[in-house]
């Protein structure tokens, strides 16, 4: 097998310290490491040995693509960045995905991955034009925000150049700094912007004129059509969203625009990744929009930018969970409401993007601080300014302080996990840090209050055993396709077939309307949930390697079929059509399992045990389900975690993969290096 189709063929290594670069053949990693997450895991296992810190010169910043990128495969335009993440608590190897066009342009330049090590002596930018690689002086860009930097680079290199940049937050090593591409594609979680900043690298500019060979173009086109068909009526004609007022889901948020009669100036657009027909509507996350010409409030002029789930929640708390808010108020006795309004809120999220600050972390900070205020804590002495949850100027000032590490910003710039510890127990108790350095995401709290118990139990399990929050590239489809599906019967049928158990969605939250749980219901809630976690993690590993969007794949549900079944073998079919490799769904799943175990081996080598996996428990025992107040049952959860270990073939007492399992998966060398023994 020559692996000529699908992959671009080379991995580019650039050492910023020496200014030298070399390439490696991608086929050396094929087929067992596939691409993206799999290939990065192999490189990390070989290079990121314990002791390498997040801002260490030896830390690698790996931008990876997959075999489907740059082809007509649907939802295949995304890319990943890997490395030791500063946001991790403690810093550890993890990943962050981003959309846009940069990743496919990297492939058109001839590279499946770009791996950066070392540190430039002075601020620089990396320019890759096919085989020409230059590290250029980047002084004139340093200090500029992400949008302005890109405008200058666009003027210099043209619109066909793929750009990724960091903002002031990344330069200042803020642990929640992002890497941005365009006005809406951001590698947010992990704080990889700070890694890029620590390497003195302001931007990476790629221009490519090469092509990706496709094994069977006609079949790929047919599969693409089939995918679009299976996504069904969630497709929306762009003409229909021209007028904001016709769009109910965001109407209430844009009310101040409507009232001021400024609606006419604002238009909306879609900003899909390369060749994607789905426009971020694949999984029901239909509130992703690109707004143009929104008038500023404290800044003159018109602003453009994308608004996603977390952005809407930054503008106004509870925009995703309107229906749950009443319940939250009843159950917790507090209303967490803050409302900056659409225009001022848009300006605020735009500012976060410009500084390069992770909006999810910032949004959690908003909820955290508001909650502290509701609990009667006087925040003024700590913040150094009056706390004004409805004032956009307050939040914008806070963003500036975080980006430049001024005053309270220096504490908050370390991320929710560290700031929670730093600010003392009283304030820290509200911090919403879940585990591994990542703030609550899909655990039945704040933005995800619609995810009711027991649906967040598998999410917690995925979180426990992963290196970051799973509700992005691992569990999205579980949430949006099954849990939120109004047709419970269909969901249960799909769950039975996909997870292999009909108890994976049981008991349904409607059976426990007021949150009173009997022991039987509790047992049921912790039954078979490990199957959900294992299945989605393995599949996420495959999709992260191919790279397919987590919003679209796996296609477990389709609104157009009678029984609701999608096509979970679609990934394998797409890989066949693009690369010509003969592989089926089961084969890909085995590959996913193998690669997930390799990622686990990296964690274990860094000292990960069951103790770290269980670190999510104390928080969930106190926060619990916001809409009904159900909290995690620690002992039942620990048993469930051990069942998960058994399902994975790991040691149930320590969470370390067993030698037998590693041998079975063909990871003999890894097992030897980890010094695993037979039990």
């Amino acid at each position, binding site marked *: 097998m020559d692996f000529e189709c699908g992959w671009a063929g080379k991995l580019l290594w650039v050492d910023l310290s020496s200014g030298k670069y070399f390439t490696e053949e991608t086929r050396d990693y094929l087929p067992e490491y596939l691409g993206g997450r799999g290939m990065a895991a192999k490189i990390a296992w070989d290079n990121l040995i314990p002791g390498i810190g997040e801002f260490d010169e030896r830390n690698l910043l790996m931008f990876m693509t997959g075999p489907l990128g*740059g*082809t*007509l495969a649907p939802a295949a335009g995304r890319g990943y960045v890997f490395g030791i993440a500063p946001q991790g608590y403690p810093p550890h190897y993890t990943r962050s995905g981003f959309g*846009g*066009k940069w990743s496919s342009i990297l492939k*058109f330049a001839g590279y499946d991955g770009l791996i950066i090590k070392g540190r430039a002596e002075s601020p620089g930018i990396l320019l890759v034009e096919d085989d020409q690689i230059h590290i250029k002086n980047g002084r004139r860009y340093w200090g500029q925000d992400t*949008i302005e930097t*890109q*405008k200058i680079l*666009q003027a210099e290199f043209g*619109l*066909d150049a793929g*750009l990724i940049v960091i903002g002031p937050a990344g330069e200042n090593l803020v642990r929640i700094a992002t890497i941005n*591409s*365009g*006005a*809406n*594609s951001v590698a947010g979680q992990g704080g990889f912007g700070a890694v890029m900043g620590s390497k003195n690298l302001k931007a990476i500019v790629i221009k*490519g*004129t*090469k*092509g*990706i*060979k*496709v094994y069977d*173009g006609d079949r790929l*086109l047919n599969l*693409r059509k089939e995918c*679009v068909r299976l996504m069904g009526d969630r497709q929306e*004609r*762009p*003409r229909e969203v*021209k007028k904001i007022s016709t769009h109910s889901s965001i109407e209430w948020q844009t009310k101040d625009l409507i009232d001021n009669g400024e609606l006419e100036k604002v238009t909306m*657009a*879609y*900003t*899909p*990744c*390369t*060749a*994607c*027909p*789905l*426009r971020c509507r694949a999984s029901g996350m239909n509130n992703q929009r*690109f707004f*143009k010409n929104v008038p500023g409030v404290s800044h003159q002029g018109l602003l*453009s930018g994308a608004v996603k789930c977390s952005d809407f929640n930054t503008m106004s708390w509870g925009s995703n969970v309107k229906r749950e808010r009443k319940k939250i108020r009843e159950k917790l006795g507090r209303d967490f409401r803050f409302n900056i309004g659409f225009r001022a809120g848009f300006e605020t999220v735009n500012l976060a993007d410009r500084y390069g600050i992770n909006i999810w972390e910032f949004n959690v900070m908003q909820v955290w601080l508001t909650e502290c205020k509701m609990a009667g804590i006087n925040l003024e002495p700590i913040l150094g300014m009056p706390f004004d949850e409805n004032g956009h100027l307050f939040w914008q000032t806070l963003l500036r302080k975080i980006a430049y590490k001024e005053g309270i910003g220096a504490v908050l710039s370390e991320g929710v996990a560290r700031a929670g510890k730093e600010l003392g127990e009283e304030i820290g108790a509200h911090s919403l840090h879940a585990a591994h350095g990542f703030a609550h995401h899909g655990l039945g709290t704040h933005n995800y209050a619609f995810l009711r118990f027991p649906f967040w139990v598998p999410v917690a399990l995925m979180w426990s055993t992963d290196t970051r929050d799973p509700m992005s590239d691992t569990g999205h489809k579980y949430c949006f396709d099954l849990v939120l599906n109004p047709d419970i019967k269909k969901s249960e049928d799909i769950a039975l077939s996909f997870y292999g158990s009909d108890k994976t969605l049981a008991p349904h939250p409607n059976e426990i309307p007021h949150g009173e749980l009997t022991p039987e219901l509790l047992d049921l809630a912790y039954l078979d949930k490990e199957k959900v976690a294992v299945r989605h993690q393995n599949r996420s590993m495959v999709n992260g390697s191919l790279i397919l969007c987590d919003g679209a794949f796996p296609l477990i549900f389709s609104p157009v079929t009678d029984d609701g079944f999608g096509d979970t073998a679609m990934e394998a079919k797409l890989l066949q059509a693009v690369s010509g490799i003969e592989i089926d769904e089961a084969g890909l799943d085995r590959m996913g399992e193998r690669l997930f175990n390799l990622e686990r081996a990296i964690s274990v080598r860094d000292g990960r045990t069951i103790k770290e996996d269980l670190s999510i428990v104390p928080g969930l025992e106190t926060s619990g389900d916001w809409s009904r107040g159900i909290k995690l049952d620690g002992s039942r959860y620990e048993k469930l975690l051990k069942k998960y270990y058994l399902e994975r073939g790991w040691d149930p007492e320590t969470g370390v993969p067993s030698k037998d399992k590693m041998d079975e998966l063909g990871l003999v060398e890894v097992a030897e290096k980890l010094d695993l023994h037979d039990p």
Partner: protein
Amino acid sequence: MSSATERKKTARVPLSGVIAFDPEICTGCGSCELVCSIAHGVESNPSLSRITIYYNPLEADAVHDVCQQCHYPSCLYACPVEAILIHGESGARYIDDDKCTGCGLCYKACPFTPERAMIKVREEGGEDKYYKCDLCKDQQDGPQCVQICPTEALILVQAKSRKKRKKTIINNRNRNGF
């Protein structure tokens, strides 16, 4: 008016269809570029595409360049080796790869040069080959970019629905010896 080329200049060529583009609904995904490069070759490669999308990710604005299939195709008149031909059904003005010598006169003659990339050039076996939109004359279902466009921002305007040549212009041209 004696040589074949001169005679050709006086010839009225049949009207052609053209690919029209609506920048308001184009999302800039670039599917058209990829499918074009595959339909005319083997690779998925936007730089070999005959349609070019200029997409600005900061403003979500997209504009496109694709051959306008002129009523009076300067490229066709300019080609010294008659490598630019008219396709029977669609009327597309297309470049015959085998005949193209790579002289570049068509590129120079194109009224959109150099601002817009209607005619592009690639290197093939040490020779320059010029290429441009041929309305997918070899495909049964017509232009592939139109077929794949997820938002129907690209539309094929048939020859018969294009604005007819104005008689006065033709007369003027005839008077001026064209």
